[in-house]
C-alpha cells in the first residue's frame, strides 16, 4: 500500500512538471556539431570545381557498398587552372543503404567528402533515396556555407577521423 502510494506520488509530481516534448517538425532538438548525417561532396570554390577526383577509395572501403564513383580527365588541368588532373565523372550514394559510419570521410585523401548534418531523408519509392552527383554537390555546398568549410587544392589532410566541421564546434 505504501509503495503504491509512493508510486502515485511520483506520477502526480511528474504531472505538474513541464513536458519534455519537442514538437518535431516545428522545432528541432539541437544538433551536435559532430553529427554524422548523410555524406555529401564538397566544392572547391577557389577553382570552382569539385574537390573529388574520383579516386574510388571511398567506394572500396564503404562497408555497405553504397557508393559508386567513376573518374574522368579534368579539362581545367589541361588549361592549367587546376592542379587536379582527374576529376569525378559520376558519383552516386544510395542513402537508404548508407549506415553513416564516416569511413568514406576518413579514407578520403582530398577532403572531398564530408558528413553533413542532413538527417531527414525519406521517400516512398525504392529508387527515391539515390543521391546523384548533383544532389550530393547541392547538399555539400549548402553544408559548406553553413559550416564555413573552405576546400582548396593542397589542403593538408586533417587528423584522421576528425570531420572537417569540427572547427565550427
Amino acid at each position, binding site marked *: 500500500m505504501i*509503495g503504491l502510494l509512493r508510486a502515485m506520488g511520483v506520477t502526480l509530481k511528474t504531472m505538474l512538471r513541464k513536458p519534455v516534448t519537442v514538437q518535431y517538425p516545428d522545432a528541432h532538438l539541437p544538433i551536435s556539431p*559532430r553529427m*554524422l548525417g548523410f555524406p555529401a561532396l564538397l566544392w572547391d570554390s577557389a577553382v570552382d570545381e569539385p574537390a573529388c577526383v574520383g579516386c574510388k577509395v571511398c567506394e572500396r*572501403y564503404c*562497408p555497405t557498398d553504397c557508393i559508386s564513383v567513376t573518374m574522368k580527365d579534368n579539362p581545367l588541368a589541361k588549361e592549367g587552372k587546376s592542379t587536379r588532373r582527374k576529376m569525378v565523372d559520376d558519383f552516386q550514394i544510395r542513402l537508404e543503404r548508407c549506415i553513416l559510419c564516416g*569511413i568514406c570521410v576518413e579514407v578520403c585523401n582530398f577532403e572531398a567528402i564530408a558528413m553533413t548534418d542532413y538527417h531527414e531523408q525519406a521517400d516512398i519509392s525504392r529508387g527515391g533515396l539515390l543521391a546523384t552527383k548533383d544532389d550530393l554537390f547541392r547538399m555539400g555546398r549548402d553544408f559548406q556555407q553553413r559550416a564555413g568549410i573552405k576546400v582548396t587544392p593542397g589542403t593538408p589532410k586533417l587528423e584522421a577521423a576528425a570531420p572537417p566541421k569540427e572547427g565550427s564546434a
Partner: protein
Amino acid sequence: MAGERGVETVDMLLNMGPQHPSTHGVFRMILKVDGERVEDAEAVVGYLHRGSEKLCERENYRQIITLFDRLDYISNFNNELVFCLAAEKLMGIEAPERAQYIRTIMCELNRISSHMMFYGAYGTDVGVFATAFMYGFREREVIQQVFEAVSGARMMHSYIRVGGVAQEVPADFVPRVRAVLSGLKRGIEECDRLLTRNEIFLGRTRGIGVLSAQDAIDYGCSGPVLRASGVPLDVRAAEPYLVYDRFTFDIPLGKSGDCWDRYWVRMEEMRQSISIIEQALTQMPEGAIQTPVAKFGFVKPPKGDAYVRAENPRGDFGVYLVSEGKETPYRVKIRAPSFCNLMALRQMVRGSYLADAVVILGSLDIVLGEVDR
C-alpha cells in the same frame, strides 16, 4: 488426457512471437499451455540473423567496428570496446591513458542507458501503461545527447577504435557529463519509487522465475542474471580491463534469483555506474587519445588469436579473434551474453503462468541483435 479433477483438458500450443508486443524484437516462444499454466516453452531464435560473424571475415578492422555497433544495439560502446581490445591484444598495444578513461566513461554511460531501456521495457511487460517506458526514455535521451556530442551518432557510434578513440571529447565534456549525472540520480530515484517497492510490482516479480546460483552457472548465465542469483562474478572486478582496477564500486547481488532481484541488480548497477563515472571524471588525465597504428585504423594484427571479454550491460561479452596477419580477420567468434542467458528461459518459464512468462523473458533483458547475430 484427464486432469487432476477428472476434467478432460488438452494442452494448447501457443505461438508467442516473432510478432508479439513483449518478445523484445523478433524472438519466438512456443509455449505449451494448460489454460493459464505454461507446461513447457521452446525458444526459437534466428529471425534477426545477419551473419555478423561471417561478415567480419570480409571486412577490415575499421569496418568491423560498424558491425559490432549493430550486435547489441543498445550498448554499442561496450561492443566496440571488446572488439578493439581483442585487436589491441593481438597487436600488443594499449590505448593511451586518456583514451582508456574516455572509453570507461562512455561504456558506463552506455550501461546506464541500456539499463534504462530495460527499465522501460520491463515496466511495459508488467503492465504499467507506458509510464515506466517514458520515464526510462526521458533519462536515456539525455545520455544519448551526450553520445551525439562526443561521437556524432546517437546509436551507431563507431567511436572506439583500435588503439584509442576516434576523436577528442568536446571541450565542455566533463561539466556536461557531471550535469547529466546529477540529473540521472534524480531520474533513477523517480524510476525507483515508481516500481521497486510497488506492491503489485513486487507481487508480479517476487518468487517468479527463480534461478538458483548453481543453475545460473550451469546455464552459462552472466551479468545481472548471474549476479541476481547471488554469484559475485563481474568481469570488471574479476579480470579488470581498461582502468577498472582504479575505481571503488559495489557489485549488487540478489539473494533469491527471482525476477525482482534481476530488476533490482540493474537498478543498483546504474547507481554504481554513476559512481564509477564520477571517479573516472576526477582521475581523467590529459594526453593523447590514440596510439599510432596503421592509417585509418586499417590495422593488420600479426598471426595469432586472442580472446577478450568484458562486462557488457547484459553480461560477459567475449570476442575470439583469429588473425592471419591480413587486412581482414580469419575468424571472429562472438560470445553473446543475451544468447547464453536466454538458455535458462525454459527452466524458469516451466510451471509458471502465461503472464509470468512475459515477465521472466523481460527480466532476462535480451537484445535480439546479439542473440541472433
